[in-house]
């Protein structure tokens, strides 16, 4: 009780010290007077009385000090004092302060921003309650794309019923593309993107609607009234954040669809499951309607019961998998999923691939911070040299060494705190900008924000960096010999030599760090260039695609031939019309574009041979005549034609890799798949009419897999993307293409006319993002290193003014002086570069996995980066060297 009372009073005393100090002064004065009075009464002279009184008090200052110590918080008082003093000195040296704070703000800001990214993608749990229970259930990676990573509705049911480890299992329809929803509000239909999820999706993830409700089992029944959940962003953008939206119905894809809820802003389907895309609406997937026969369409996500380990879940999935059937009506399809049901933590699925990149990025900003600290150390040392007399004086007046170090550390702390404040603001801008880069295909990016952890990180790194850059100059200053410093009248004294050695070590380490950053950035940059030069199998420039809506429904069409015929007519009309537009060179349809979604339909095999088990089938694309030309993919053989009719001979085109595989099976004497029939698991034979180049279907930096193309008149497409090739800028065609489509079909929504180049950009955006970040950090590191070199050389020139003057007076030429200084600069830089290259060679393994077509020990990169550093070092040394060569000997010799 009494102690807490005291604490409160101490805090109060700390804040309001002036009146208490006045009080104490009065009290001490009274004390002294009493004592003097007593002493005089004893018969002393007034002078003697006063002297004795002071002795028995034991020193007025000590009394004050002890009183204050007991009364308030002495440590804080000292800190306050140091703090005020620091502010004053920094204020008096604005150029130093601005440079120091700027350097720190850049380094700390970059660190906070990268930390936020790392935190969001790697450290923080996913934005769902008990996110550690969530698992992604899929087979190990295969080359048949999403079809092999998904499950049929029957398989889903079987898995859900037979698994005991899960609270529940859910999933979503994996094959819906962008702009698949057309919202009709009266005017032209508006394009949007929706995704079908199993009705328990939100319960499993633990996401509540912000308004209204999420789906129930009722919503996914056969014949249920159509309902939709809106994403927060779409609700705000399209519906002006209408607070009464729940219950309203809109025409979506021609059906009156009721809005049952709005999702919270913290849930972004695209950010979690489909990086780089935006999902506007979510609709319930009717598992027991038509999807029953669509094959592998569902991705699985499970929530394990509390206490179930991943190992238990994996074991159980391995036991359940053989019981799962592709379709319960075909018993031979049971067991297809053996070995293909493997739960992994959802977080690993989403962010796991980025772990290495993020670690590299984190190391890069760490290096930046180190370079900044070294720079600051250097600046403080230079400043400290100028202030050494001040410290020596304070030491002589009784300041302890610890007290001076404390003063200097306070300065560092104030500087780093200021840097941290500006850095935090900088990071806020960066993070805000990053969160709105929807085109970057990185997961969770839109959920990026500065949080408490980022703030904590800021505090931590600013303390750590203050200690790092403050301790060396602090110890240097405080350790100085008082006598030497006071006597040291000017430049050229021996104390400064030691000083310079420390600074040289600092510069060398700075150059070494910058060198490592540059080499890393160079390797990533070169990899990125290689990625851009990959032969994609199509020409991404001068072409664009737009999603076209069409209606090929024919009532009572048993085998689909009637609807295929109708579709053929529609597409042929559209292509004729579009092809006649000025500027259009070629046009064609596909259902999936490359570098996007994909699926497979089994393994067509040379007729007469039995297809092997366990070989993944080629990816399937359903296209029209003209598509290959529109994409710029060369064909050997012939393109499809409109006379490849539904009932005619079934034709396909295959890619080179697949053709190669089939040819090597020795079914054909000429080892050429062209014009050969392929058996198709019970269906009609497929005749290979063309062989096309390998197209990168999933990513730019991987190998192309097998592909097979069916004509839209013989197979059912999942959608229709119209690809138009032009000699002009593709966007100049957007208006006329859309207008033509509208004329033919008023229901055509104003879908985006996307340049094909964008698909490629999107596919490489993750790599580009990391590359750009590392390159800009390397640039920053280079700048800081240049600054450091400049600072040291320029300081040493100033220090040697007199010496240079003497040399010049004795006949040294300006060129000679410049040469000497440049040599010493380059010597420092070279040592740094050698160390940096050595460290890079050792550390290159870390980055190897991120490279493409580039060796981690690429000589060109190492050489050019070393050269670049040398040039920069020479430039930063040249300015002070030039200044030195202009020294006027008479002036230089007079200044001292």
């Amino acid at each position, binding site marked *: 009780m*009494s*102690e807490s*009372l*005291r604490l409160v*009073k*101490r805090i109060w*005393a700390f804040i309001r010290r002036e009146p208490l100090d006045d*009080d*104490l002064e*009065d*009290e*001490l004065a*009274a*004390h002294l*007077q*009493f*004592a003097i*009075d*007593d002493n005089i009464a004893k018969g002393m002279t007034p002078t003697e009385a006063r002297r004795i009184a002071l002795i*028995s*008090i*034991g*020193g*007025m200052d*000590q*009394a*004050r000090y*002890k*009183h204050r*110590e*007991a*009364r308030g918080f002495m440590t804080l008082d000292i800190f306050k004092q140091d703090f005020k003093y620091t502010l004053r000195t920094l204020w008096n040296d604005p150029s130093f302060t601005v440079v120091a704070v700027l350097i720190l703000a850049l380094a700390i800001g970059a660190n906070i921003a990268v930390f936020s990214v790392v935190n969001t993608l790697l450290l923080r749990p996913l934005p769902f309650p008990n996110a550690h229970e969530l698992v992604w259930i899929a087979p190990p990676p295969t080359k048949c794309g999403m079809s092999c990573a998904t499950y049929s509705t029957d398989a889903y049911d079987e898995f859900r019923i037979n698994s005991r480890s899960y609270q529940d299992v859910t999933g979503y329809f994996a094959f819906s593309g962008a702009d698949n929803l057309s919202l009709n509000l009266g005017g032209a239909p508006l394009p949007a993107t929706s995704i079908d999820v199993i009705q328990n999706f939100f319960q499993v993830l633990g996401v509540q609607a912000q308004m209204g409700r999420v789906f129930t089992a009722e919503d996914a029944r056969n014949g249920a009234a159509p309902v939709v959940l809106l994403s927060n962003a779409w609700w705000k953008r399209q519906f002006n954040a209408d607070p009464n939206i729940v219950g309203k119905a809109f025409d979506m894809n021609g059906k009156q669809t009721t809005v049952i809820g709005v999702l919270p802003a913290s849930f972004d389907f695209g950010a979690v499951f489909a990086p780089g895309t935006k999902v506007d609406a979510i609709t319930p997937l009717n598992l027991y309607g038509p999807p029953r026969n669509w094959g592998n369409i569902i991705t699985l996500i499970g929530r394990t019961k509390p206490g179930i380990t991943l190992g238990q879940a994996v074991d159980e999935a391995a036991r359940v998998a053989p019981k799962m059937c592709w379709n319960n009506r075909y018993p031979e399809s049971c067991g297809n999923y053996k070995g293909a049901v493997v739960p992994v933590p959802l977080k690993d699925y989403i962010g796991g691939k980025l772990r290495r990149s993020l670690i590299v990025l984190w190391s890069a900003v760490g290096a930046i911070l180190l370079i900044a600290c070294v720079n600051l150390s250097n600046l403080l040392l230079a400043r400290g040299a100028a202030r050494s007399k001040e410290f020596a004086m304070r030491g002589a007046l009784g300041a302890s060494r610890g007290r001076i170090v404390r003063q200097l550390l306070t300065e560092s702390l104030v500087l780093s705190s200021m840097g941290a404040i500006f850095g935090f603001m900088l990071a806020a801008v960066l993070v805000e900008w990053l969160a709105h880069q929807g085109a970057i295909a990185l997961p969770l990016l839109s959920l990026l924000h500065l949080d408490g952890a980022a703030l904590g990180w800021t505090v931590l790194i600013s303390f750590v960096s203050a200690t790092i850059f403050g301790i060396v100059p602090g110890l240097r200053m405080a350790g100085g010999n008082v006598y030497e410093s006071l006597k040291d009248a000017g430049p050229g004294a021996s104390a400064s030599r030691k000083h310079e050695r420390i600074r040289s070590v600092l510069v060398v380490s700075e150059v070494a760090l910058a060198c490592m950053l540059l080499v890393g950035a160079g390797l990533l940059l070169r990899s990125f260039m290689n990625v851009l030069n990959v032969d994609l199998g199509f020409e991404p420039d001068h072409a664009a695609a737009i999603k076209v809506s069409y209606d090929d429904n024919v009532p009572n069409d048993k085998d689909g031939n009637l609807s295929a015929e109708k579709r053929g007519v529609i597409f042929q009309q559209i292509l004729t019309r579009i092809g006649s537009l000025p500027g259009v060179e070629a046009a064609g349809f596909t259902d999936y574009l490359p570098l996007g979604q994909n699926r497979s339909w089994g393994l067509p095999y040379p007729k007469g041979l039995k297809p092997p088990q366990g070989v993944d089938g080629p990816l399937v694309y359903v296209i029209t005549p003209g598509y290959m030309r529109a994409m710029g993919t060369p064909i050997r053989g012939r393109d499809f034609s409109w006379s490849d009719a539904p009932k005619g001979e079934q034709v396909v085109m295959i890619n080179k890799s697949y053709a190669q595989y089939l040819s090597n099976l020795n079914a054909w004497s000429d080892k050429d798949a062209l014009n050969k029939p392929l058996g198709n698991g019970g269906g009609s034979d497929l005749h290979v009419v063309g062989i096309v180049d390998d197209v990168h279907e999933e990513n730019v930096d991987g190998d192309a897999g097998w592909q097979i193309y069916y004509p839209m008149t013989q197979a059912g497409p999942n959608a229709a993307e119209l690809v138009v090739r032009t000699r002009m800028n593709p966007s100049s065609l957007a208006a006329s293409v859309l207008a033509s489509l509208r004329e033919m079909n008023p229901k055509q929504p104003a879908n985006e006319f996307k340049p094909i180049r964008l698909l490629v950009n999107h596919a490489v955006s993750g790599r580009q993002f990391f590359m750009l970040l590392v390159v800009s950090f390397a640039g920053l590191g280079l700048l800081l290193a240049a600054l450091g070199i400049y600072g040291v050389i320029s300081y040493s020139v100033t220090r040697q003014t007199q010496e240079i003057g003497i040399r010049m007076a004795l006949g040294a030429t300006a060129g000679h002086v410049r040469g000497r200084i440049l040599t010493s600069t380059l010597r420092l830089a070279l040592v740094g570069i050698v160390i940096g290259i050595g460290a890079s060679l050792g550390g290159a393994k870390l980055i190897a996995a991120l490279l493409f077509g580039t060796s981690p020990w690429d000589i060109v990169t190492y050489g050019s980066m070393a050269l670049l550093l040398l040039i920069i070092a020479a430039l930063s040394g040249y300015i002070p060297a030039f200044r030195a060569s202009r020294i006027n000997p008479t002036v230089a010799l007079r200044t001292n």
Partner: protein
Amino acid sequence: MSPEKLDLLQGTLDLMVLQTLTVMGSMHGYGIARRIEQVSADEVLLNQGTIYASLVRLEQRGWISSHWGTSDNNRKAKFYAITAAGKRQLAADARYWERLKDVMERVLTMDKSAEGADA
């Protein structure tokens, strides 16, 4: 008087101040310091200045109170008086010191016979 004065143990000064105020009533800092010096017959090493650290500690704990007043010889001075809480604290502290003194006395006066009797 021994050649070296006694160093005050931690907390003893506070106890002396409380006791002095209990016996003498309201007093100013100088008076308290002089009184302690007189009672201890100049045996303790007391820098009079340190009394003010003790006074502020005691006051912050609520054991003494202070007010500005006028001394006998008409000087302005800050007077301290013990509070009820201070009296309780003094009683507790005094008991503690009594016990400690007894223990120290027994320890310092022990002899072999006591050890043998125990064994």
